[in-house]
């Protein structure tokens, strides 16, 4: 279990945000932090979920639980990357639209 969380931290949304946004807090950067906290919460809960599953499974199928947790983690990472990509696209389209409007000023 303990070898899973460091992998999650490599893709922590807060880290991505901190390397790609400036220091002031926009709506989107605030949202990013919130999203990061949610992701962190989910990551933190993965071992708890694992413990619950283990206690249910009296056979103690540890490898099944580990695989299940990895799948959960992969889904979370994929979702975070998708969110980041969408936010990046919003910033890009925002900037382009603003510049187009300024260029068309009379």
């Amino acid at each position: 279990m303990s070898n899973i969380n460091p992998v999650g931290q490599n893709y922590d949304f807060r880290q991505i945000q901190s390397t790609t946004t400036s220091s002031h807090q926009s709506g989107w950067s605030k949202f990013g932090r919130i999203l990061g906290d949610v992701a962190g919460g989910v990551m933190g809960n993965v071992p708890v979920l694992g413990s619950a599953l283990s206690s249910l499974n009296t056979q103690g199928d540890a490898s099944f639980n580990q695989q299940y947790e990895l799948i959960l983690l992969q889904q979370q990472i994929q979702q975070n990357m998708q969110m980041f990509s969408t936010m990046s696209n919003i910033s890009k389209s925002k900037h382009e639209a603003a510049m187009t409007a300024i260029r068309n000023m009379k």
Partner: protein
Amino acid sequence: MVNPLPIAITTDEKRFLMESAVLMRDSGRLDQAAVMFEAIVSLVDDRHLPLIGLGSVEFERGAFERAVERFEDAVAFAPDCALAHAHLGEALAFSRHLEEAQLALRKATELDPAGTAGGNMARQIQKFLDYGLL
């Protein structure tokens, strides 16, 4: 709004002022950006653009309700401006008025199907809303 200053500026100067204000905002100097956008409102005919700028400054400050007011001013001044509707939709979404946000974003995409003048922005925000996370 009446121009309080007896100043006439060229189109290039207007664009330069707007770009400077946008740069101020994007570099986090929000107070200076707001002052610049306020001044530009009285200098240009396309007042919805500095009004959008003022709204975006409020948005950056996290004052989403005040941002909505500014963007509504911009929409009132230029009802056919897709960019104003897109920004309004974004601010409405962040201030938890999701139904109105959807309407504003839809309006933006209708007004700018090509996407270069705010339609793409609206579509991207719409995509984000579809995640159900705002």
